[in-house]
């Protein structure tokens, strides 16, 4: 029992000396504050990111409402700028990243047959830092000088002209970084140390693989970001001149450091999504994942390439030709492993006995719409074309296609897929499908027109625009409100499923494979206290 003893709660902590396998959660609110249980912490992360999703979404709707027609109607431009900035920070650091960490907490131990995460107390800290960090971050909106309004990329010198919120934002970013790094260390330790005998690396579920690589990306890049914002902080308050030309520094250098973090960060936001889709498609195609090995290598290649492409965000800063060529070709090279993944998903579905439950609908929606976002990314990678597209709505259309019908769809797919395992009840399939179709219609009404206004030259991050962009902006805003409000359905379906519904079996889905489907639904508070025996039927490949 040595491997499980390490992770057990100390007896005095919960007041249970015996019956480790039997005891349930503590009672009351303190259960959630002091919990070290991976399922509790996963749940906390997921609820947190769902709440932040609606906060970030409300900001997006303020942006879209202002852009409904030309002119300044609803908010003043400074507040508009802080909405675009905060929307990005909330959605990236408050929604997508915590949601993936939540899924990792819930699913990785159950997928590899471990009793809990390797470092449960650290896990508790990783989560509980986040609400405080975001309270600090969001509180800046109520300051006299307003919230951060220089864009989430925090480019100097503009960002150094920010009001009182500056120090608070940097402080919050530091805490979010600490939380992410601690969470990642925990995930790496869990995957390295807590696999039972027989669960070799090349038998791990794809979700575990993608998270292992994501955790490495986080550990390697978040500290660089922390360094960059620390330099901003010392430039502003302590007289250094990292980015101030007056003292011999260079503002363009910030962009290099930032995007050295920023580009791997965009893969941090999508690699776990690849893992989720690679879990769901085989289940509903009732076939094992096509090309498992190539999926692993493709994920690792994407992670490696993500470190040598950063300057494609900076084609207009006056790079030499050799640099432009290098970053253009290395960026285009990423489409090779990404293409391998897309083809593997399609090949998994090929001649499968497919059924189209809600998770599968979201997963297929992911594959199609993520590919649209990937293709516009390839267009942006072409240096001479990028000089035209740079900082236009075409860029906004591109990254929203990979993040909303990409990362967010994968999160919804994951929620529907594992919700019966978490709650023990089936969700309302009819409502789930309706949620998918309404979301998919509106998400395209919302983001597709942005390609057109972008190619026509509409700049991003502006509260007002020329008349010729009016029609498509009006359509995008209608899509935004449709998409935003249809997400209330998502909450309703989740709450309804928690409160009751048709009882789920242990396997839940007919074609589901993997260790998480061998435990009861709902999953007991403690699972795999003794290591499971790995059989061909219980591994996903």
């Amino acid at each position, binding site marked *: *029992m*040595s*491997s*499980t*003893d*390490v992770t057990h709660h100390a007896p005095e902590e919960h007041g249970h000396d015996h019956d480790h396998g039997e005891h349930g959660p503590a009672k009351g609110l303190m259960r959630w504050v002091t919990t070290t249980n991976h399922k509790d912490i996963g749940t906390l992360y997921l609820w947190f990111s769902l709440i932040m999703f609606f906060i970030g979404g409300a900001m997006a709707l303020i942006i879209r409402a202002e852009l409904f027609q030309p002119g300044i109607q609803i908010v003043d431009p400074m507040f508009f700028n802080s909405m675009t900035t905060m929307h990005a920070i909330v959605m990236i650091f408050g929604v997508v990243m915590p949601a993936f960490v939540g899924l990792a907490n819930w699913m990785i131990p159950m997928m590899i047959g471990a009793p809990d995460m*390797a*470092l449960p107390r*650290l896990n508790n800290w990783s989560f509980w830092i986040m609400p405080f960090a975001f309270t600090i971050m969001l509180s800046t909106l109520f300051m006299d000088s307003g919230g951060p309004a220089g864009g989430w990329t925090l480019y100097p010198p503009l960002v150094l002209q920010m009001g009182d919120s500056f120090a608070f934002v940097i402080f919050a970013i530091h805490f979010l970084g600490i939380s992410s*790094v601690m969470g*990642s*260390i*925990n995930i*790496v*330790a869990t995957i*390295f*140390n*807590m696999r039972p*005998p027989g669960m070799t690396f090349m038998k791990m579920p794809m979700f575990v693989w993608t998270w292992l690589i994501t955790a490495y990306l986080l*550990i*390697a*890049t*978040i*500290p*660089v*970001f*922390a*360094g*960059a914002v620390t*330099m901003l902080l010392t430039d502003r308050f302590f*007289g250094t*001149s*990292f980015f*101030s*030309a*007056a*003292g*011999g520094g*260079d503002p*363009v*250098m910030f962009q*290099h*450091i930032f995007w*050295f*973090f920023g580009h791997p960060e965009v893969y941090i936001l999508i690699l776990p999504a690849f893992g989720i889709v690679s879990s769901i498609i085989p289940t509903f195609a009732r076939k094992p994942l096509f090309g498992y090995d190539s999926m692993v290598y493709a994920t690792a290649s994407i992670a490696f390439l993500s470190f040598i492409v950063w300057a494609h965000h900076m084609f207009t800063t*006056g*790079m*030499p030709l050799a*640099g432009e060529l290098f970053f253009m070709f290395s960026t285009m090279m990423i489409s090779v492993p990404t293409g391998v993944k897309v083809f593997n998903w399609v090949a998994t579905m090929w001649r499968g006995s497919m059924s189209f439950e809600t998770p599968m609908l979201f997963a297929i929606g992911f594959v199609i719409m993520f590919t649209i976002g990937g293709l516009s990314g390839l267009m942006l990678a072409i240096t001479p074309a990028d000089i035209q597209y740079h900082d236009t709505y075409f860029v906004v259309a591109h990254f929203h296609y990979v993040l909303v019908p990409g990362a967010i769809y994968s999160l919804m797919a994951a929620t529907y897929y594992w919700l019966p395992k978490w709650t023990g009840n089936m969700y309302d399939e009819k409502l789930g499908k309706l949620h998918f179709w309404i979301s998919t219609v509106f998400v395209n009404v919302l983001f597709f027109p942005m390609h057109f206004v972008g190619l026509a030259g509409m700049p991003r991050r502006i509260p007002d625009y020329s008349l010729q962009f009016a029609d498509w902006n009006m359509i995008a805003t209608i899509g935004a409100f449709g998409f935003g409000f249809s997400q209330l359905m998502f909450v309703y379906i989740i709450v309804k499923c928690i409160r009751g519904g048709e009882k789920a079996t242990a396997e839940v889905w007919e074609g589901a494979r993997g260790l998480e489907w061998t435990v009861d639904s709902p999953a007991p508070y403690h699972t795999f206290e*003794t*290591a499971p*025996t790995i059989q061909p039927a219980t591994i996903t490949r």
Partner: protein
Amino acid sequence: MSQGVEAARKPPSHGRVAGKMLLLACAMFGFGYLMVPLYNIICEVTGLNGKTGRVSASAIVAAPVAEDREIIVEFTASVNQSGSWEFRPNAKTMIVKPGILYHASYHAKNLSSSAVVAQATPSVTPFSAARYFNKTECFCFTRQSFEPGGSMDMPLSFVIDEDIPINVDRVTLSYTFFRSPDQS
């Protein structure tokens, strides 16, 4: 049940893995700072970003002169904060031969009523010419102090390396004048 088998396994050390990962995180924090000198070195070596070279005066005597080439050097000046400065080159252009040392100067006047320390930063375009544009002496090497209303001519000496790409016939040297950041 399987306890016997389990007990035989060596307990894996989570602390070791976590320690290694923490070390990696700290190293990457350091790497973020290491990018600052790296960036400056790369810019200086390649001449990217318009960073100019610096040579000693004695090296120039021995340098070969490209008698058959003439390059127009343009001087421009800009001030980072508006209002309180007058800053301009004394000659707007010079025609130079690579390999010969030339002298030029800029004029600056402090229009404000307080003493100010200022710093000029240079940039050369096209970037491909920057690494061949060498200065032996420049007011941009040091900070300049100005009395209230004080003015001065600030010298600079430069030589263009004869290896400058053959397609470059015009080089722009631009200075931006900054108020030094460490004064209130």
